[in-house]
């Protein structure tokens, strides 16, 4: 027998996810804001964060600089830091070496950020072309110029 949907359980799921997030929560890279997507399945019970804090300079180098990312973007950003050798085991012994690692780490993050900006630019351009095709008068609308 196929069970009926359970509206109360659906509400529970939705509201409990929302309880774990501020109302304007979104990933700074991809813009994802759907609590259902921001959910993490495999984190230990003690970790409730749905959005995660990424340290673009590397956590060992600077804990103050943060970016809030969804779990997918955080995983990609961390992998990029590892790819450029920005996350050695342990803290670098001198400030100059830490600066090298921080700049590598930041370069990796900027590349990811640049990719994001490029993606958003492409999306916006696609919208402009679509408007030109389907709503050519849009350019004369107030506030556009």
């Amino acid at each position, binding site marked *: 027998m196929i069970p*009926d949907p359970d*509206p*109360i359980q659906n*509400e*529970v799921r939705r*509201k409990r996810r929302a*309880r*774990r997030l501020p109302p304007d929560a979104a990933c700074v890279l991809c813009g994802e804001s759907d609590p259902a997507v921001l959910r993490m399945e495999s984190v230990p019970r003690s970790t*409730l964060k749905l959005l995660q804090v990424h340290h673009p300079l590397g956590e060992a180098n600077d804990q103050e600089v943060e970016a809030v990312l969804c779990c997918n973007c955080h995983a990609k950003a961390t992998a990029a830091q590892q790819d450029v050798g920005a996350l050695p085991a342990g803290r670098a012994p001198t400030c100059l070496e830490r600066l090298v690692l921080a700049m590598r780490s930041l370069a990796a993050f900027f590349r990811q950020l640049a990719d994001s900006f490029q993606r958003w630019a492409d999306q916006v351009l696609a919208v402009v072309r679509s408007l030109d095709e389907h709503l050519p008068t849009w350019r004369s609308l107030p506030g556009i110029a």
Partner: protein
Amino acid sequence: MTDRTLPIAHRVWAERSDTKRRSRPDHRHTVPPGVLVFDTETTTDRAQALKFGAWRYYRLDSDGPMLLDEGLFYADDLPERDPGGYAELQRYVAKRSTFLGTGRERRIRLLSQSEFVEKVFFAAAYRLRARVVGFNLPFDLSRLAIRASEGRDANRGGFSLVLAPGKVGTPHKERRHRPRVDIKHANSKFAFMSFTKPADPDLVDLIPDGSTDHEPDPGYAWRGRFLDLRTLAFALTGIAYSLQGACDAFGVQGKDDPGSHGKITEQYIDYCRQDTAATFDLYVALSAEFERHPVTIAPERAYSPASMAKAYLDAMGLRPILDRQSDFSPEVLGYAMSTFFGGRAECRIRRVPVPVKLLDFTSMYPTVGTLMDLHRFRIAARVEVVDATSEVQELLERVTLEDAFDQDLWPQLVGLVLIKPDGDILPVRAAYDGQTWGIGVNPLTSSEPLWYSIPDCVASKLLTGRPPRVVRALRLVPVGRARGLRAVKLRGVVPLDPAADDPFRTMVEERQRIRRRTDLPEGEKQRLARALKNVANAGSFGILAEFNRDELPKGKQARVLVHGRCEAPFEDRVGGPEDPGRYCFPPLATCVTGAARLMLALVERCVTDLGGSWAFCDTDSMAIVCSARGGLVACPGSPERLPDGSEAVRALSFGKVESIRRRFAALNPYDEEAVPSILKDEATATCFAISAKRYVLYDLDEAGEPVFPKKHPPSEHGLGQLLNPVDPDEARRSRR
């Protein structure tokens, strides 16, 4: 009358010294995500075990409530205990469906009790933090319990209900990540209901409601939103309704005919579902009524009219005096407590029917509060206590009956007097029968000086003709103006500006005006008038004298520092310490009840000055013996004599009683157009009284049967021990 030496007792101000004052819980109103309404049907025997129940879940959003799901549930053991009933439930859900708010038709779910508890009750009420709504909700919650124990700590004296059993294969007797439900009855009108903190809560359940960082707080526990509509209806109207009565009063379709209770039939299931639907409709109606009040408390925190009154004072920015002035002298609070007595209730003519007119004061406590201008203390920055021995002594020496009918006297009466009683007529708490403490107003002589409110001392002067011997007197003086006063509209209609007017005077005037309005439907007029009456009565007196007894476990005692009539406090231990309510302020409370006794003393003096007598008085009313033309009325035990020599009492004529009533026009503090008189002629009837507060007013019809005045039907007050507890109309006291 003979002199008797009796021990007397006083109330005291007892500060708890061994416990920290509990912080005030956050009662602000936030909109819940949804509402779970449920109702249970039980066996008809004494156990009233669960048979089945019905529930509905509504989502609340900006478009209003939307029905998301509906179902039935049955006792876990019903299939074995009542297979026929269980089969009937199965047949019912197989052929019936419900229309959801989404527009979809859906079959009605049938769950076992334990499935309902986990999948619906805990899911909605605990995990989702929805509001749980019922009528007489504590009863329905208790029907879901698989076990109960005595409450502890804050729930001492209550029950702790276990709803979810431990998981199979674990040693635990109850589910470790689900809470219990604590229920503690405060009185017949309301019970405190809350979730406990589970032994092993889910972390998401530890994120506080309204949290800004969305992080779990290990110290947090979700206490639930349990709303008993019986309580909310009482808070809004002052009336303890049945479900049907509340539905009628608020224009909601009520209950169906159940057929017969006990046997599960299609009609009985329909009845249960309709009860749930009616409960929700009543919730909507009561919520609409509640939302008209500009208060910030949640509806589940509106326990009584006093809760509403306090919420109004909060809304108007009127902070409790002891909150804004925590250094107020505890000695003065002790003196004030020792002067505190309730309303005067007395029976003068016992067990003899006499003709009377019942005179009744309009809103006695708000009226005397207005006359004394107590509002100046509510809006003051501070309340100072000053010595006023000589001026109060002078006042008591010169005050006459005429002076007491001058409104200018009354604001001077807010204070306390230490006197040496010597035959003065004063209220006193004494063991008149040698065993129990009772309060009487009688001639009192004491070797020790005693504190009294100034109004009580004035009343004594008027009744005895002699001023009490003053040892010391204190007067309350308002200083400065409190900040943050705000104007509100009572029930969205009546403007109340505490900076400009006494809100309780406005409420009494508006209540009378509303009664005469023709532009409002009758139900609306009644609701508004009730709201005004309840808030005025509770706010002008009740909350000033609010104490909450904390019944400690057997054998446990709390240390208290006792401030009483003497200057030096002393330490003691008590098993049931009384915590003052937030707005409690005994110096004003005692002046209110004292002033009400003074009002009755004025009526008494007016009656006796005319040679008349009275049968009883009760707080705000007095039954004066009278007849159309006046004259003697047979009354054994009375001093006058009829021509045949039998004992009699003198009745005043209707005209003389009317002249007394009219005299009180001078003390009317209200707009006369709104409140023409503060002393009303309530009834003309025969009175038969047996003791204080136990009386009946009646007339005899042509057949000799008693007919009761509409405004004063007989009550069963004090007759509980004579009634059948199961069926009050049954003549026998028990079913045996």
